């Protein structure tokens, strides 16, 4: 399946302002995506409200709009530039949310604009906790016991069932904003209220706590011909309970047997297939170190912080490949620029990669320095080493 002929102009959504959980990783991926699509001779229109980014540099796109990332502004640009497609998967959660808003308001269908990279249905399965839960159940995959709540009282009722500590996860938020771990009823009252306010739809998920379980991530990429590869497996050194963005992480995965790893890989592929993924995606699993029981935590149908890490860790250009897939290519038709071999392969590492978070609590008076579900790191270092110890120490020294 070669490049689609019906696309001339593609609109790319950037990641907007730099906030905790969404920093230069997305500038890196959107820039890579712009270059990849430019090579295909497409006319690119970029929307990003943040001028302090590489992606907004002159020459990367044909038209660059430094405007607020709102549905109204995006729609005006769409009417003016008449793109055939919009690519929302390279600009993090901000871009994904904006695309969903445009879709829900009917703006995209009105202007005949197609969402590429991830269609609204894929995004909804990943983002709506309830649909995600249903999809996983239909695939026979294990998930933590959970239920939705729309009021503080409902939240307390649910937590009585799952027991304390219980996890609070607000729907449609970024970097775990508004999430937390309630260890008692009184903590639940406060955290449920906070979570309900943080969610743009006033909805939170109360979930069984998996604190202390191993936390694993798979960065995968899939094309519409149903070819899929796992680019990188990442293991969190901090177990469940600390946000991935705040965790020290290591690649490749160090403590799973091949039987466990391949079973997890199979599950990731089934999820990607079931939601119809086209492009990059990140799937997180928790593994009970005492029994090996494995549950699916979440998936992000877009290029994420971890994919930027995985790209640099393995030399596999995830954003570039994802952008090419979004305009119709198959994985086997693309080449990895480094190895000069097919992009349809799974990198094998002979080194370790460690990511360490950078905290700046001294600059945020009033912010609690206790790590939890809400990301606190303001940056990170990544180091390669011949073994884990070397990579860890380099990463820590880099802070």
């Amino acid at each position: 399946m070669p490049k689609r002929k019906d696309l001339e102009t593609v609109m790319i959504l950037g990641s907007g302002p730099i906030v905790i959980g969404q920093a230069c990783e997305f500038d890196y991926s959107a820039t890579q995506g712009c270059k990849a699509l430019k090579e295909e001779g497409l006319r690119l229109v970029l929307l990003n409200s943040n001028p302090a980014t590489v992606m907004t540099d002159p020459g990367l796109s044909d038209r660059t709009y430094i405007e607020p990332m709102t549905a109204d502004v995006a729609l005006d640009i769409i009417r003016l530039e008449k793109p055939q497609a919009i690519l929302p998967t390279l600009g993090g959660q901000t871009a994904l949310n904006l695309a969903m808003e445009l879709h829900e308001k009917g703006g995209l269908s009105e202007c005949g604009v197609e969402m590429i990279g991830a269609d609204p249905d894929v995004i909804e399965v990943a983002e709506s906790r309830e649909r995600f839960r249903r999809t996983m159940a239909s695939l026979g995959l294990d998930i933590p016991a959970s239920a939705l709540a729309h009021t503080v009282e409902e939240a307390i009722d649910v937590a009585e069932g799952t027991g304390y500590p219980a996890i609070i996860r607000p729907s449609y938020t970024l970097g775990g904003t508004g999430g937390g771990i309630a260890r008692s009823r009184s903590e639940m009252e406060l955290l449920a209220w906070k979570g309900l306010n943080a969610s743009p739809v006033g909805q939170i998920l109360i979930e069984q706590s998996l604190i202390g379980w191993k936390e694993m991530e798979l960065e995968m990429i899939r094309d519409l011909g149903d070819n899929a590869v796992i680019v990188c497996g990442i293991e969190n050194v901090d177990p469940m309970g600390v946000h991935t963005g705040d965790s020290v992480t290591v690649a490749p995965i160090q403590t799973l047997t091949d039987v466990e790893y391949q079973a997890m890989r199979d599950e990731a592929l089934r999820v990607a297939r079931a939601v119809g993924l086209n492009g990059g995606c990140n799937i997180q699993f928790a593994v009970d170190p005492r029994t090996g029981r494995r549950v699916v935590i979440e998936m992000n149908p877009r290029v994420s912080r971890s994919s930027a890490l995985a790209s640099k860790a393995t030399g596999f250009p995830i954003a570039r490949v994802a952008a090419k897939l979004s305009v119709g290519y198959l994985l086997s038709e693309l080449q990895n620029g480094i190895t000069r071999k097919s992009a349809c392969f799974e990198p094998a590492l002979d080194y370790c990669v460690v990511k360490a978070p950078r905290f700046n609590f001294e600059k945020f008076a009033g912010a609690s320095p206790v790590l939890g579900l809400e990301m606190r790191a303001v940056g990170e270092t990544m180091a390669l080493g011949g073994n884990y110890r070397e990579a860890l120490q380099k990463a820590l020294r880099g802070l």
Partner: protein
Amino acid sequence: MTPLTTGIPSHPGGSVKLTPAALTLDDGASFAGLALGGAVRAEGEAIFITAMSGYQEVLTDPSYHGQIVVFTTAHVGNYGTNREVDQAPEPQVAGVVFHELWLPEAVHWLSEADLPEWLRSGKVGALTGVDTRALTLHIREKGARNGVIAPLSDGAEAARARARAVPSMNGLDLAVRVFTKAPYKLPCGLAPTEEKPVYRAAVLDFGVKRSILEQLNSCGLDLTVWPGDTPPEKIMGESPQGVFLANGPGDPSACSYAVNTARHFLGRLPLFGICLGHQIMGLAAGGKTYKLPFGHHGLNHPVRDEDTGKVLITSQNHGFCVDPDSLPSGVRANMWNLNDGTVEGLSWDAAPAFCVQFHPEASPGPHDSRGLFARFRQMIKEHDAQA
């Protein structure tokens, strides 16, 4: 002799005894490290594998019989060992070389013994603390070659002489050393039903992995496993409905007995071959095999299936390969390796037969191609319906 310190990580190993040793190749190149235990020596063809997990499956795979396996991944042994994943009752490799073997206690709920202990009790010559990247680059450049693991106290000249004395893999029949000496039966244990009858299949053993037998069993095949050199008439005595040609070590062209058996069955019964079995089927068709410079050993090889257009990520372990130009008409190379364009699968136009160079049973490796076992079963079913 001064103790060797450079290039060896400070293992937090405590009580594990390590001896300064080296892997010396027949071209004189030498790679120093620390050997596990006392004066353990090993010799064989040195090859590298890029797998990041599944070390125990590799070390017990009869296809690696007599080889010195170099793991390129940084850490090996982290999750200990468990006999459930053994591919054969005992370790098969001649020796093993690690960048860093995990010496402290393994922390995993399934671990029965730590890898160093497992290697010691299996009498596998193991070398750790080796610059495996330099070694791998050397093998990639100069090709897989024979070598020995020996204590430094043996002396460099003696090690080189021993490495040069190791017999070449070319023309070497290693299968005969690992296949079963007597036939045995492995019923699938599934109750046959109207919709899903159980069929009888013969397995020609050249060093079959346990996981292959499990996969064949689990798709509803009762198995009789025969020594690889069993004459076809004897196998026919059990009236099998399909024949499977197993994986195994060594040079396929040295297994003329098996080539003749495969030729006998081609066109008569459904045939499926994996790895060495694939090469033997290629030879039986009239094709030729050749030795790859450093082989394919890893869990990440992309293979395109021309019949479906799909790419499978496969587990591979082979040093020899079927030459596509040598194949007669009627035998089609229908699967190709995307990395180096070598043949990965064959399909017969007029006979119910197919074979693959890679390992659909995985163990270790991705499960993308496990459906091939069901395809073999389907082939038997269709052939049986016509008969």
